[in-house]
Each structure stands twice: as structure tokens, then as C-alpha cells.
């Protein structure tokens, strides 16, 4: 019986898995770099400059400025989550890439960790591409917003581990749609992204803070793009780090249970 919280034994070989994924990403970089570039523009025009015209100020700022950091947070969430759900599942089940790698000196723990690190890296790449786009519209504070770059890796890692836990327990690829529309989509809408969390009834606010990771991401990215830092952010950051560590260990063990039989 494999324990769910056994600390994985790792070596620097995890980066070989990361490198493999990076090489694939770079082979199709034109397709890969387009979405993070286009997506914020679409949202900014539709919601910010379109719908936002009917909103004078929201919490003392323009609506576009309000949603700009949320768009970054959503992109961090989506890129890591989808990489480590559908992306990892295809590599694990259809391409048998993990089987091929564990026939070499790498262990399954290292393969999964490499996948998670790559998921986090994708978040970092996407967030980094979005920053100049948003800066061009004068929507984010500089240089403080540059802290989003390292933060996107840490926050991306959290969503990579969440995705990997689902990948480890999903019976097939179609079932991965359940966490997508039952967890990711509500989070996309109710995490203080397009309207302030404070509009929700108080118990729901606490529920969101406790269980919806995106709320913490949005609070931190918003504080950075608007340069409104507060002590409360330390708690959000601690929440992200703590939950990622627990889910990291869980994801690796769940995957081990699934693949090592």
C-alpha cells in the first residue's frame, strides 16, 4: 500500500522531463505564444472597453484596470491546469511518454515533478507575455508588476498540482471535463475576477477564500498591478505555498499509485 503523503525522492533529473516538454513547446512556439498575446486583448476589448463603458469606477478605479490583473491570474490558472490535466493525460495514456521515460534512470516521482515544473513554467511564460500587452494600455503599475513574473511560477505550480491530482484519478480523458466546469469555470467567475469578492454574501466570501485558489491569486496580482500592497497578502501567499506543497506530495503519490502496478 502506497502512502498518499510519502515525501518523493527527487534528483536534478526532474529537469530532463522539463527540458523534453520545453523542446516540444519550442517546436510549435508560434501557436503557443499566440494565445497569451490575444486572450487578454479579447477580454480587454469585450469586457473592459465594451461592458466597462457602463461602469464609471469600481473600487475607485476604472473597470479595465480592475480586470487586467484578474486576466493575468486566470491565465496563470488555465495554462498550468490544462497543461497538467489534458496535456499530461495525453502524454501518460496515449503517447506512453511516461512509460518510455521510466525505463531510463528516471523514476516516476521525477517524471511527475518535471511535468509539474513545466506546468508552472507555462504559467510564467504566459504571464510574462501578457505584462507588456497590459502595460501598453497603461493598465499596470511598473516596476512593481514585474513581481508577477516570479509569482506566476509559484502560483502556476499550485494549479499544476491541482490538475495533476485530477489526472491521477480520472478514469478517462473525458472525465477531466468535470473538474474543468465544476471547479475551474466557477473559479473563473467568482474569485473577485470580474466583480469584487465583497459583493458576495459573507459566508460565500469565506468559502471562496478557503477553497478557491484563484481568489488568492487575484488578490496578489491586483495588489501588484495597482501598487496597493497590504499585510493580508502574506496570508494569501502562505496559503498558496502551503496548499501547493501538500498537493504536490499528493499528486506524485496518486500518480505513483496509478502507474506503478
Amino acid at each position, binding site marked *: 500500500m502506497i502512502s498518499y503523503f510519502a515525501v518523493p525522492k527527487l534528483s536534478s533529473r526532474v529537469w530532463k522531463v522539463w*527540458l523534453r516538454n520545453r*523542446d516540444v513547446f519550442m517546436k510549435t512556439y508560434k501557436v503557443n505564444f499566440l494565445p497569451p498575446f490575444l486572450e487578454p486583448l479579447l477580454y480587454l476589448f469585450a469586457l473592459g472597453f465594451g461592458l466597462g463603458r457602463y461602469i464609471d469606477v469600481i473600487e475607485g478605479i476604472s473597470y479595465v484596470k480592475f480586470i487586467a490583473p484578474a486576466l493575468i491570474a486566470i491565465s496563470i490558472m488555465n495554462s498550468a491546469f490544462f497543461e497538467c490535466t489534458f496535456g499530461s493525460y495525453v502524454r501518460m495514456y496515449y503517447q*506512453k511518454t511516461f512509460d*518510455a521515460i521510466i*525505463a*531510463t*534512470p528516471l523514476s516516476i516521482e521525477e517524471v511527475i515533478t518535471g511535468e509539474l515544473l513545466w506546468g508552472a513554467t507555462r504559467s510564467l511564460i504566459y504571464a510574462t507575455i501578457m505584462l507588456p500587452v497590459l502595460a501598453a494600455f497603461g493598465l499596470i503599475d511598473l516596476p512593481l508588476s514585474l513581481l508577477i513574473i516570479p509569482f506566476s511560477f509559484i502560483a502556476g505550480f499550485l494549479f499544476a498540482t491541482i490538475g495533476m491530482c485530477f489526472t491521477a484519478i480520472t478514469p478517462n480523458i473525458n472525465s477531466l471535463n468535470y473538474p474543468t466546469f465544476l471547479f475551474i469555470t466557477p473559479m473563473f467567475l467568482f474569485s473577485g475576477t470580474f466583480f469584487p469578492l465583497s459583493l458576495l454574501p459573507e459566508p460565500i466570501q469565506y468559502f471562496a477564500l478557503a477553497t478557491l485558489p484563484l481568489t488568492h491569486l487575484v488578490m496578489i496580482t491586483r495588489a501588484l498591478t495597482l501598487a496597493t500592497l497590504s499585510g493580508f497578502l502574506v496570508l494569501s501567499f502562505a496559503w498558496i505555498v502551503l496548499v501547493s506543497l501538500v498537493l504536490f506530495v499528493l499528486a506524485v503519490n496518486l500518480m505513483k499509485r496509478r502507474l506503478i*502496478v
Partner: protein
Amino acid sequence: MVVCIVSVIVAEDLTKQFGELVAVDSVSFAVEEGEVFGFLGPNGAGKTTTMKMIQCVSPKTAGKLTVFGMEVSTHQREIKKLLGVAPQENNLDPDFTVHENLMVYSRYFDIPRAKAERMVAELLDFIQLSHKKDTVIEQLSGGMKRRLILARALINSPRMLILDEPTIGLDPQARHLIWDKIKSLQSQGITIVLTTHYLEEAAQLCNRLVIMDYGKILVQGKPDEVIREYIGTDIVEAENDPEVIACLERNTTSYDVIGNRVQVYTNNPQEMIYSLLKECELGQITARSATLEDVFLKLTGRKLRE
């Protein structure tokens, strides 16, 4: 001269259970350095499971298993470094070309880039795929994929190769090419462990083999010795006719009825034919050499396996 035979794999009472199912049931065998050792058996006999335990990707349930003198449950990394594995399923990386597949794989073994480039060029030459260097995997034929998998298994200059069904689904040309490669690798001193359904392949390639069924080893030995022990050198076949049967019964000859034929196992076909012709009323009679397939079917039966 002292010939020192070194066992590179030693299994004693090796067992693997998946829940209630006993996939490998207390098997013992030893593979010696430099030989080609075959695992034969119907589907579900436990061959692939045994391979997976040897390559340290599936933990054993019980028993002892050492590879190069190292215990599989504690020295996985060290063992895997010395192994080349060609799995049954094609798991080449579809995101990469032929050349990239080998280069990316070489990284997993910490092979420096320059050395890897040299190795890859050599290996592509060896498997005759140099001209397909920049082709993506999905455009390769089945035979090319199997050859590339073999090349990938050789990237770390392994001391032992594990080939799970190396020629499955290949046409005769491609199969013979793989056989040639396997023989050439053996002549370089590499120990080769393979599983196969093709008994002719096993007879051609293997120095020693085991036949497995329902997780157990039924026979173990050199192909011709196994044939002689279980069948004899030759088989005399006659039509399945009540009179023929009655005659064989009278002569207390050992025989098997297979469909519309009767097979008589013998070490002396001429004498057997002579005596059968003399004593029995035989319509058609043929004699042929016994093969591994005869042993296989005798031991594992003719019932279809799912």
C-alpha cells in the same frame, strides 16, 4: 581455460500478484551473460510482467530477483542505467523526429550532447534509418518504428537488452532485419532477453528459453534439447482414422490426435514409418522434424487464449 559463467539475472520463486490474480507464480530462472534468453508463452502467461519486474518498473510481490547482482527493489536506478528496453507497445515520442527522439532519450541517461550526436548517427546507420533522420514518427512504417525503438534501447550502450515482442506485426523482410541486428548485438557481447509469440524466431535466436503458461515456467532449456525431451526429433503424421488409431494402440506407440491428423512422436522416423506401413493400413503418411511449435502446443494446449 576456466570458463566463468556469470548469471546476470537470477530469479528465485519470483511472484507477482495483481490483487487476486497471480500473474507470475513463483518462477525461478537464471540468465547468463552474453546469451539470448527467450520467454515464450500464450497471451497472459506472465512474460511481460516478468520483463517489467526485471526492468524495475513493476515491483515484485515476493521472491528474489537480482539483475547484475543487484536487488531490483533497492537498486532501480543503477540497474536501469545498464539496461536497454524495447517495449511491446510503440512509445516513441510523436512530438519529435527520428533524430530528436534519440537525442531526447540520450538526455535521460546523462549522455553528453557531443557523444550523443555520435551515438545517434551510429545507431541510425546500424538500423538503416539515416535517411529518415528528420522524419516525424507518424510517417514511419511499422518496421521502421520497431527498428527505431531498438536503436533507442541501445543509446546508453547497455549491457543487457530487454526486447518485448521485438518483431510483432512485422513483415518477413523487416523481421529478418531485426533478427540480424539481434545476432549482431549478441556477437558484441550484449545479453539479450526477449519475449516472443513466434516460435521460429525463438528457435532461430535463443540460446536458451523458457515456456511459460498461467504464470508458471513449464520448460526450461536449449531449443533443440527442449524439442528432443518433449517431442523427439521427428513427427510422423497420418490421417485420423479409427483403424490407424487401433493399430497405434496395438503397438503401444505414443501419439496425439489433432483434428483430422494423428501425430506420432519419435526419434527414429524411418523405422517408425516402416513399421507403421507394415503393420497398419495407412493412407497418407508424412514425416517432418519436430519444432518448438510442437512443444509449445503440446504443453500449453490448443485452446484459444483471451
